[in-house]
């Protein structure tokens, strides 16, 4: 009681200079927000506004309409396919790996090793990753040579190539799997052992446990991470560039070419291309956040 009265008194006493103090408080965050405005918000807004302007600066929807020409649609479609395939594979295999290491009854060092390795591998993206896969599956790569020398089979005669959709997807998975492992591990930890015991006591089979208990609880986490992996692959530029040298028609590659020289012959169409990419990224990250919030209801 006395405390409350005292608090009230303090508040009243502080009431007068408050307006001044709040202003000063806001000053403390100015550097960060100014920096963000200059180097994050304004550049993004520039592209956004540019997407809706013609070269004379007048408002137009023509650029957005032009995004639907086959060449650009194809690049979005290819990017979406690569991202979706690697995200799906990442979710399935990454979950399997994480679950096996955490709940598979294997020695503890396997889990520790997998987590450490995942931390490294998920950050081992970009140019060096492309190099590693060229050394592995390129025309004179290690595995290609093994096939040639041991089995007498030239992989590149069978239609396989590292520099295509399949090769790019194989490469992207090298950072997609570990990312999945790292993000989903806490959710697997959150699956309580008691739930399994309870379902077994009630006579549930292994399949029923997964179908009616584990999967419904894990679904938001799986979906959420999947969408995150999708965005992760969708925005990747360095890996794709180093691997294919720009021969695959992906959106980031197109934007790169547009920055280096106006290959679309319309700067504003270039802005719209980038804007479309941000929209897709925003949708995927947004969905992922929503689903994460749902997950945390069950799993702490």
């Amino acid at each position, binding site marked *: 009681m006395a405390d409350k009265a005292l608090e009230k008194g303090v508040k009243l006493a502080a009431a007068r200079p408050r307006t001044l103090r709040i202003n000063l408080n806001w000053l403390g*965050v100015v550097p960060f927000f100014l920096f963000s405005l200059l180097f994050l918000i304004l550049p993004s807004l520039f592209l956004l506004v540019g997407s809706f302007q013609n070269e004379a600066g007048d408002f137009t929807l023509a650029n957005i309409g032009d995004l639907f020409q086959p060449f650009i649609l194809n690049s979005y479609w290819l990017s979406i396919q690569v991202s979706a395939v690697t995200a799906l594979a990442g979710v399935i295999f990454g979950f399997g790996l994480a*679950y096996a290491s955490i709940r598979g009854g294997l020695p503890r060092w396997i889990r520790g090793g997998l987590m450490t390795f995942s931390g490294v591998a998920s950050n081992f993206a970009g140019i060096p990753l492309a*190099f590693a896969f060229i050394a592995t599956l390129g025309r004179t790569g290690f595995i290609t040579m093994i096939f040639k020398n041991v089995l007498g089979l030239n992989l590149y005669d069978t239609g396989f190539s590292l520099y295509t959709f399949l090769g790019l997807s194989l490469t992207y998975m090298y950072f997609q799997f570990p990312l999945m492992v790292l993000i989903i591990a806490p959710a697997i930890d959150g699956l309580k052992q008691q739930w399994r015991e309870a379902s077994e006591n009630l006579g549930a089979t292994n399949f029923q446990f997964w179908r009616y208990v584990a999967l419904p609880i894990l679904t938001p986490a799986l979906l959420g991470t999947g969408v995150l992996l999708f965005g992760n692959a969708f925005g990747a530029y360095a890996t794709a560039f180093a691997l294919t040298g720009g021969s695959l028609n992906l959106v980031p590659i197109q934007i790169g070419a547009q*920055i280096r020289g106006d290959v679309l012959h319309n700067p504003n169409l270039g802005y719209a291309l980038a804007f479309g990419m941000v929209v897709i990224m925003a949708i995927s990250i947004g969905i992922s956040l929503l689903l994460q919030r749902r997950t945390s209801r069950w799993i702490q």
Partner: protein
Amino acid sequence: MKKQRFWPILMIVLGAIYFLLPLYATFEFSLRERRGEYSFDSYANVLADSQFRDSFIYSVVLALATIVVSLLLIVPTAFWVHLKLPQLRPVMEFITLLPFVIPPIVLVFGLIRIYSRPPFVLVSSPALLVAGYVVLSFPYMYRSVDTGLRAIDVRSLTEAGQSLGAGWLTILFRVIFPNLRISLLNGAFLTFAIVLGEFTLATMLNWPAFGPYLALIGQNRAYEPAALAILSFGLTWICIGLIQLFSRGSREQTQLAGTR
């Protein structure tokens, strides 16, 4: 029990093959420079290349500058928001998440278009590259610092400092920074690992950093790229290893970076 372990073991074995085979293959490939026998010639070539040293040092300096600027922007702001303006927290979270939504290739597009014409011509200064890297570091730097701030009693520490007569700068640099050192090291090493090999921003803004150097070697040499990939993997391993070493015991660690 034996039967139950079949699937987990299969998963781990498959995973190990997928993860380790490219590493082994790259290593084997990097030794093939001399015809007919294994040698470390490609490594010697790389290390003797003055361009390698110059670009590597260039990127190390960029990474250090990025870490300093990022820490000076994020820590005081996160501290201040924690203490005085908690209503701003969602805004901070939103802004520091934006670099995940705006991929580097799009960010650099916007930066180039804005800062290559008056009134601000910044493309001729590496400061713009550092600014871009600082933006890329926002998501994990902020999350790392925010986690650290939640774990300590910011208010009591600040009040204790104030009652001993410390000013804001003293509190920030002698109380808050030291208390957050694990989180800060976490963020700093991740930033280091990412800036070191970063390609997109460096190549588009045309600076002689390590990433563009890697790409150049990739176009002109056969075995040196494999050697560089092994070296890069080793460096990433060191950075992440140090993060895990520092944050041993604390549950939360940030080691997830954005898209590349």
